[in-house]
Structure formats: C-alpha cells, structure tokens
C-alpha cells in the first residue's frame, strides 16, 4: 500500500478488501463520467449554484428585499446594480442569488419525497405481487394518465398557495414513474438466488425489501431523478409565475418573471434575467442527467 499511489490502489485489478472494490468501482465510474465534457459542465454549474446559495449573504451585493423607489427599473450595468433593479428598486442580482436557495429547496424536497414514495409503492407492489400489485399499479397508472401541471394546479388550489404546497403538489404528480421503475427492478431481483438465500436464512419481507432490494433500485432511480430535476424546476417556476408557488416578496425566479412581465416591452431585463437563471439550472440538470445515465445505466442508453 505504501509504495502504491492512491490512483494505483483504486485501479488495482485485484482488490484486497470490500472497501477497496467499492471505491474502485466508484472511481472508475467517475473517470468515465469525467470524460463527458457536457456532463462535467452541468456538474460545474450545479456546484457553483450550491456554493452561491450557501454563501448568499456574502456574495449578494444588496439586501434582496430592500426597496429603493428612487432607483426603480434601472437597466443592466448600472453602477452598483450589475443586473439592474426591478419595479420596487430591488437589486435583481441579489434577488437571483437568494432565489437560488428557494430553487434548491424545492428541488431537494421534491427529489426526496417523490422517489421515496415511488420506491415504497414500486418495491412493495413488485415484491408482494398478487392483489397488492394489481391495486397499487392501477393507482399508479391512474396518476400517470393525468395531466401533471393541471393536476398540480388543482392540488394547489385546494391546499392554498405557497412553496410547501407547491412542493407537495409537484411530488404528488411526480412519483408514479419512480414506482414503475422500482417495480420493474424488483421483479427482476425478486426471483434471484441471493434473495432466496436470504429468505432461507429467515429474513422477513420488510428486511428483504429495505436491505436487499432498495439498494439495487437506487442507481436507476438517481438517473431518473436527475433527468426529472429540470422538469421539477420548470414546474415550480410555472407555479410561482402563476402566483401559486412562492409568494411575494420572496425572490423566487418564476415569481420574479411574473413581476417583470408588465414591464417586458420597456424594461426587458426585469423578466428576462430570472428566466435565464432558470434555463441555466435546468440545462445543467439535463446535461448531468445524460452523463449519469451513461455511467450508471449503460443499458438504458440505446441511442
């Protein structure tokens, strides 16, 4: 070990421990991923986004809520306001920076709720089979057949506007594809020999599902979640734009576009700049998702 570099240790053909084998496969995946320039570009943007969101109070030049009516609707490049100001004289750059926190918050919550719900439904349905499978899959199909945005709108209408309710509404419409994937994976795993072995050792269904089936479903779910992120961001921004997501004065990007909409013909930057931010982030997620699919799920990449 001592005369070996870390890289050699990772790329060794004969791993001496389970830990080494695990790190080696991760490292090889990373090398594979790193050769994909576009995916790395996407990852770079997202890392930057997380950093900006984390350091928002340091990076932002102004208070995102501070109004300055004397300086309203200043154009891009104004002294002290790099991206101009909005209709209440608030600094657009600072609002964008703080808005990244909201975007990440929404995306993280949906990315936690929807796949976990789908995983639960899919694995239970696939493992138990029989009537449980028929009923759960029927419910999944019903939700899959719904128009997602309109259903999310109706949910928000019932629950009331707000970020948390928007997250809930998007999650409620986003889980079915994950359930389908998890079920398909479970069906192939269920009949394998090692599951029979675990069962013979006395493991119950709960233990088998959580300890032996879930870990194997994770990688295909991660790919799907990453590819769905862009859609989640766009849906959240759409709800914010309609006034059903984050409420003013919150610097949510969709709501910012909605606020600048009235001035689009004379003061184009107020609505245009937040849209570019949304576009950049969802593009980054799409690029990252494509790259991850190539690494984690080579069989799904038929193109």
């Amino acid at each position, binding site marked *: 070990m001592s005369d070996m570099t870390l890289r050699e240790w990772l790329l060794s053909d004969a791993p001496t421990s389970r830990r080494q084998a695990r790190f080696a496969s991760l490292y090889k995946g990373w090398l594979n991923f790193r050769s994909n320039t576009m995916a790395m570009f996407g990852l770079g943007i997202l890392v930057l986004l997380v950093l900006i969101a984390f350091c928002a109070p340091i990076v932002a030049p102004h208070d995102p809520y501070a109004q300055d009516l004397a300086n309203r609707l200043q154009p891009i490049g104004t002294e002290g306001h790099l991206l101009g100001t909005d209709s209440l004289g608030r600094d657009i750059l600072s609002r964008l920076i703080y808005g990244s926190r909201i975007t990440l918050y929404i995306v993280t919550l949906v990315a936690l709720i929807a796949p976990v719900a789908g995983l639960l439904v899919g694995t239970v349905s696939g493992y138990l089979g029989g009537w449980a499978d028929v009923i759960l899959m*029927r*419910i999944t*199909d*019903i*939700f899959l*057949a*719904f*128009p*997602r*945005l*309109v*259903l999310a*709108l*109706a*949910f*928000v*209408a*019932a*629950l*009331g506007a707000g970020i948390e309710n928007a997250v809930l509404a998007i999650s409620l419409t986003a889980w079915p594809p994950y359930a389908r994937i998890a079920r398909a994976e479970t069906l192939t795993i269920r009949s394998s020999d090692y599951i029979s072995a675990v069962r013979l050792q006395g493991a119950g269904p709960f233990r088998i599902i959580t300890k032996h089936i879930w870990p194997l479903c994770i990688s295909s779910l991660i790919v799907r979640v990453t590819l769905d992120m*862009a859609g989640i961001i*766009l849906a959240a*921004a*759409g709800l914010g*734009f*309609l*006034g*059903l997501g984050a409420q003013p004065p919150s610097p949510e990007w*969709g709501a910012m*576009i909605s606020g600048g*909409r009235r001035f*689009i*013909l004379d003061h*184009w930057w107020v*609505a*245009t700049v*937040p*849209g570019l931010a*949304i*576009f950049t982030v*969802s*593009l980054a*997620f*799409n*690029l990252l998702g494509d790259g991850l699919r190539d690494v984690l799920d080579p069989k799904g990449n*038929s*193109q």
Partner: protein
Amino acid sequence: MALAENDREGRKPASFAPFLKTAAGSILSIAVTMLGLLLVTFIIGRVMPIDPVLAIVGERASQSTYDAVYEQLGLDKPIIVQFFYYISDVVRGDFGMSLLNARPVAEDIARVFPATLELATLGTIFGVVVGVPLGVIAGVKRGSWIDQVARVVALVGYSMPIFWLGLVGLLVFYGILGWVGGPGRLDIFYQDIVPTRTGMILIDSAISGHWDVFRNAFSHLILPASLLGYYSMAYISRMTRSFILEQMSAEYIVTARVKGMSERAVIWRHAFRNIRVQLITVIALSYANLLEGSVLTEIIFSWPGIGSYITTALLSADMNAVLGGTVVVGLIFICLNILSDLLYRIFDPRSK
C-alpha cells in the same frame, strides 16, 4: 399465390377475437382511469378550505337558507352517495355553476375550448412538419452537424421555461420587430365580425370568406403556436431519431443497400415506413401534452382558452370551474393516451 390469399382470408376471424379482447380491456382500463380521475377531483373538492354553501348563499344568509342549500347540494348525504351524485352529474355534462359569473361551467368550457384546440393543433402541425424530418436526418446522419444541431435544439427545448420563452418572443417579434400580432386572438378592430361556428377563428373566417380576419387571426396565432410547436418538435424529433437509429441497424436495411437501392429509397420506403406506427403514437402523446402545456402559454398571450379559464378561476377560488376544467383536460388527456396505445395495437402487425 392463391393459397397464400386463402390462408390470409382464413385467418382473419381468428385474429379478430384477440382484438375484441384488447378493445374490451381498453374500455375497462379507460373506465377505471376516468373513475380514478373523478375520485381525485372529488377529493380535492372536499379537502379545500372553502365552504361551498357559504360561497353560494353569502355570509349574511340566515341559518335556514344555509341549511336548505346544504341539503340541496347533497352535503347531508354519506360521502359515498355524494361521490355517486358527482359522477352522475359529470356524466350528464353538469359541472355545476361557476361562482364567479353564475353560469354553467360546462357552457363556459365549451366556449373557451376551441381556442385551446386551435392553438394546440397548429402547434402539433408545426412540431410534426419540422420535427419528423429533423429526427430522420439526425438519425440517418448520426454524429453529423445536423445531428448536433438537433440535439442542442431538443436540449434547449427541454430546459427552457415555456412562459419565459413566450415573453421573450413577444418582446422580440411583437415589441421590437412588429412582425406578429400581440396578445389575444384578434385585434379589437376585427372582433365580432365573423359569426361563431366552430369557435376556431381560422376556420370560421375561412368559411365566411373574411380573409382579412383570417390574416389577422393568423398573425396572432403564429407566435404562440410556433412556441408550442417548438416544444412538441423537441420531443418528436428525439423520438423519431431513436426510432430511425433502431431501424437503420436492422438487417433488412443492409439487404436493401446490397440490392443497390438508392439511399433515399432505403430511408423513406423502408426505414420510415416501419416507424410510422410508433410515430403516430408519439404524435398523439405530444398533442395531449400540448393541450396541457398550453396553460402557461395562454396566460402569456392572453389567449382565452381553457388554460386561462382554469387559472383565472383558481385565483378567484371558483372551485367548480377549476375542477370542471381539470376533469375536461384530464379526460381528453386520458383518451388521447389510450387512443395512441390502441392505434399502436391496431396498426402494428406484430401485435396481432
């Protein structure tokens, strides 16, 4: 040859039975899915924090009036019975009264729906006319510059917020260049000239021969329709490309080339002919998505369609209108989904 003909004739009734079976299965699955949709909208209607009785009688009504309306709405019955009432109402096309303008919701929806239909149909036409050839070329010339362009176009389409692109389009093509009409379906000057027949202004004005109205309507329609068309094109071109790629590596393509067929004949007479069925299902799906995707576009372009209707109702807490609109969009969405599935089964010889 004659034997083969006979053979085919003889097999016909046999292959018809499974088709009936799939049709019955489809009808059952349509029924279950629609019941599910109604259950969800019913539950949404029940959990909402708005008191439906109070919304009708107002806050100053006496207790007896309140109770009368409460009973009239069937709210005193068990929840299951209420659900059956709801289903029978919807089946009869009764979505209740709009709380906003006190008119039947079904009538309102019938009035606004043609506007959405016009928009989504033209959008799908754009998507197909551009997307299919783009996908075919990208698939045949894999890795070429045109494939790269198609990839970027699709990627941008998947990542761009549609309402933002609409705003920017409005700014550039209407505000700066002045090439297209602004928000709305017609300029004020042209409104109410053409008698409403189908509700789709392009068709109505063409029927009555008002070509000036037609031109004006088209100038208003072109921007939102091409915007929607762009999104449908992104999806259709990607799917076409992967279908074509699958075909081009098949052995019969190699055979056709070995026989000395021209590349054009190989692509269009062989490969394309085999992906037509898949394409039809993809187009039906993208049409369904556009009907839904037009919600945000309609807001941007002040387009008086079902998307605008639902959102306006939403913001003024008119739940009957919201749920009625949701049910209509949902039903159409489900029907198109199942139709595309059915078309696939009917037209794909392998599934028989």
